[in-house]
């Protein structure tokens, strides 16, 4: 039943214990069923045990869609493994479905032979009707014959477990997720202690609720242990990760950590201006907790104000940052142009989601790349970097800030819903390993009679003179400036010159970024070129193909504007280039335009990350062509 072969089995207390390499579990139920909580607790205990983990929370945009409806199904998938993994898995080994709607929308992802655990009590007439079932699917033995089905009366058993605590029925039923969790913990030999500690801390002020959840958790485990139904359970050994101390981290957390780190090491304070938007809001939440680091967070009245506020803060000498998602980035466009024109350092984070317009707020997509490249009036190039995984957000956001400060330019950092909400183990760095960003503000006129705010250095960047510095009073703004003096200047030749300078400056960023590394053969028939959050799936797919005897190379872009200097050279060494993207071909358009190469796209826009199998199929078919 696990993704990889069973390597050993033994008998413990009359129950068979099998060793497996990698497991994929999905919890799904109503939005109010606490599935995100169950999934993240399972992630925590698995990570704390020492497995590698990768997660995929998948929830509806509605906070509480009608109970029992198909629209209200919320899911949390996680994979944990005895070796390093890069995706939350294609097929589900164990599916926990808390109601008929969850079963209906998720069963298709359960692998043949997989384990299905359902809350039998939720399959009543009303819930069946809401999910559009004529008959109870649990009675359809033919449809379920390919699975190992466990009908568990979770509602009743949970109520029994918490009886005597004086809880209302509603409160008792809210503990069902812990019952399910306890059962799955038993099934995969998870140590429940981190979850027990969490429950005690979370409900410290409501001891009866804490006790109820602990009893439900225990009840689920006891059920697995004592019933005849479960004849086997599984063990997943610790993964052989690089030595060190680890914690679990999501992309949004890593962004916040990275920003605080950049500011602290630079000896600067951080200003964050933002407006609530899914899936970027957690960055605001995280940063607003970091006041002791001198982080100022400003929840603005709208996206435009959020962006404008960071332009003001950057003028004042702060490390300034904003985060949003596609709809908000559209609104920020004009003020981003102002940041570009005034040549001030700042970082704009786009946690991409399905578009256009409001689109799919809680689902992932990579479709803002061209918006980041071109979404402003005039010739207005900005550097763009993109993180490849949750933990990578920590490093790439610091890179974004470094480029911004070194080149005096707004930098766009692209994340997406998948890596922003997804979690993975993160090896905690020593602070001494991290490289500080060097920030300098001029204190005098550099020997000139007047201060020259647009006098440039070899990076074409101008001095970051900040208010409060005597003798450097100057004015900046959105009107075209004369180079060197910074005075308003409309002359034709100057505008052409300044347009070229702004563009050349972005090109020069390439001098400061690492060359692109190819994973696999250095030349040959096929190069798979990816960017952003698809890294894990593409890397896994390429490795799988190569393990099966194919010869295919993978290169992954974390720097998109400018491209690494050796990208053209790498592309030229392969007969064909495949660019898989969660959009309709945006990087492909850039690559084709820039390198005149007939790159092939593999494109998916379903609000979900790539499955490894989709990519291996595509790679295989291209290699067979």
């Amino acid at each position, binding site marked *: 039943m696990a993704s990889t072969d069973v390597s050993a089995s033994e008998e413990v207390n009359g129950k068979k214990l099998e060793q497996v390499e990698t497991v994929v579990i999905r919890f799904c139920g109503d939005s109010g069923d606490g599935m995100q909580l169950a999934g993240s607790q399972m992630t925590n205990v698995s990570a704390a045990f020492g497995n590698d983990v990768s997660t995929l929370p998948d929830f509806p945009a509605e906070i509480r869609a009608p109970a029992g409806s198909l629209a209200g199904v919320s899911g949390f998938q996680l994979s944990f493994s005895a070796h390093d993994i890069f995706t939350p898995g294609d097929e589900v080994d164990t599916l926990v479905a808390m109601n008929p709607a969850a079963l209906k929308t998720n069963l298709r992802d359960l692998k043949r032979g997989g384990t299905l655990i359902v809350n039998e009590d939720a399959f009543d007439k009303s819930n069946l009707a809401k999910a559009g079932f004529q008959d109870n699917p649990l009675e359809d033995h033919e449809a379920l014959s390919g699975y190992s089905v466990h009908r568990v009366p979770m509602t009743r058993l949970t109520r029994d477990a918490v009886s005597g605590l004086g809880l209302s029925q509603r409160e008792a039923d809210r503990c069902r997720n812990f019952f399910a969790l306890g059962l799955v913990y038993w099934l995969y030999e998870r140590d429940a202690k981190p979850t027990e500690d969490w429950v005690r801390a979370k409900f410290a002020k409501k001891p009866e609720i804490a006790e109820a959840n602990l009893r439900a958790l225990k009840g689920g485990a006891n059920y697995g242990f004592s019933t005849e139904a479960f004849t086997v359970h599984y063990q997943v050994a610790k993964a052989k990760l690089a*030595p060190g101390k680890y914690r679990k981290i999501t992309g949004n957390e890593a962004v916040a950590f990275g920003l605080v780190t950049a500011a602290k090491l630079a000896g600067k304070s951080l200003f964050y201006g933002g407006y609530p938007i899914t899936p970027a809001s957690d960055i605001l939440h995280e940063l607003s907790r970091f006041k002791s*680091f*001198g982080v100022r967070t400003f929840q*603005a009245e709208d996206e*435009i104000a959020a962006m404008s506020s960071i332009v003001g803060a950057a003028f004042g000498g702060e490390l300034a940052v904003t985060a949003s998602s596609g709809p908000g980035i559209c609104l920020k466009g004009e*003020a981003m142009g102002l940041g570009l024109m005034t040549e001030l350092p700042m970082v704009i984070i786009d946690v991409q989601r399905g578009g256009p317009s409001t689109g799919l707020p809680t689902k992932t997509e990579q479709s803002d790349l061209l918006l980041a490249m071109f979404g402003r009036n005039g010739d207005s190039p900005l550097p763009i970097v993109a993180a490849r995984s949750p933990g990578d957000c920590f490093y790439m956001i610091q890179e974004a800030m470094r480029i911004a400060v070194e080149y005096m330019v707004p930098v766009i950092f692209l994340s997406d819903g998948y890596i922003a909400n997804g979690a993975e183990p993160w090896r*905690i760095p020593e602070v001494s390993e991290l490289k500080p960003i060097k920030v300098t503000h001029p204190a005098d006129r550099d020997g000139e009679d007047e201060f020259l705010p647009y006098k440039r250095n070899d990076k074409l960047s101008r001095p970051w003179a900040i208010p409060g510095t005597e003798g450097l009073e100057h004015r900046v703004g959105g009107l075209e400036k004369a180079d060197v003096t910074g005075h308003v200047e409309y002359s034709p030749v100057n505008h052409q010159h300044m347009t070229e300078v702004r563009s050349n400056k972005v090109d020069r960023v390439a001098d400061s970024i690492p060359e692109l590394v190819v994973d696999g053969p250095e030349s040959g028939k096929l190069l798979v070129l990816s960017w952003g959050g698809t890294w894990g799936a593409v890397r896994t797919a390429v490795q799988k193909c190569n393990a099966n005897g194919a010869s295919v190379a993978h290169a992954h872009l974390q720097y998109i504007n400018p491209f690494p200097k050796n990208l053209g050279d790498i592309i030229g060494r392969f007969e064909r280039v495949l660019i898989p993207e969660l959009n309709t071909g945006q990087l492909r358009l850039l690559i084709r335009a820039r390198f005149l190469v007939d790159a092939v796209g593999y494109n998916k826009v379903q609000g979900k990350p790539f499955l490894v199998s989709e990519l291996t199929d595509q790679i295989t078919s291209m290699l067979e062509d």
Partner: protein
Amino acid sequence: MSVELPVLSAKDFASDQEIRWCPRCGDYSILAQMKKVLPTLGIPREKFVFVSGIGCSSRFPYYMNTYGFHGIHGRAPAIATGLKVSRPDLQVWVITGDGDALSIGGNHLLHAIRRNVGIKIILFNNQIYGLTKGQYSPTSPLGKRTKSTPLGSVDNPLSPISVAIGSEATFVARSVDVDIKHLTETLERAAHHQGTAFVEVYQDCNVFNSGAFYYASKKGEKEENVVYLEHGKPLIFGKNRDKGIRVNEGNRPEVVELGSGINEDDLLFHDELATEPSLAFMLARMRSPEFPEPLGVFRAVERPVYDREVNAQIVQAQESSGEGDLTKLFHSGDTWTVE
């Protein structure tokens, strides 16, 4: 530590840039009074920042030899908020117009004011879009014929003062571009206010809306059309100071003649410190020609200042838990060790 500040004059605040407003534009006078006021404040020149949006008035920062930021249309209050929150040590002025502040930037104006960010907002109200050559603005009167309203405007105007008071402003004032003494005093009051200071200045656009405020600025006319607000004093106006404003039994203001049984004690006494903004709001609704229009400080009250509160929370956090430590942060929550 006491630091000897250099004595500055208006000249020290003049930039080397050629001023490009139309000849006789009301903006010149406002610029001149500003340059007069700043040296009196005891603040070093490098601590001033002028932030503006888009429009004729928004060229203002280029003409001041201070730090300046010429922003984008309507966003100056948001830019200034980011700057002031990160740099509470600076004195930040926002220069804006009726189109910039009340049309495209209405949202930012409202929120800067309600937060009570420590910035000074000077709104040059000329009731017209000047830079785009003569379309009606959110303060243009009904019936106004402009390039975009050839048959007269049917677009109901709003009062900047009412908007500011409705946004919970702590300081609200009005002055007139050519009323040099009054404008200087008003700017001084604004400069000293803690929190958002909002000042509307009637400003003559002599090219696209010439004379719009002559009733309030021309000698011989203004005496009957404006009433100066002074805290604790009755509202008296008129060439011979023989008229006043009284609140009638319906709680509405009315113009009365002094004498013949009505004396000063019967009049409305101005109270800029009133906790409730209802008096200030009533005054804001007084429009010519039915009433004289109030000039001066409508409201000046104290309320916590946003940028100070933000920074106080940081100080408090650092005092209670020490300055942030990255190692501690990274290791917070569940961690595990791989050998």
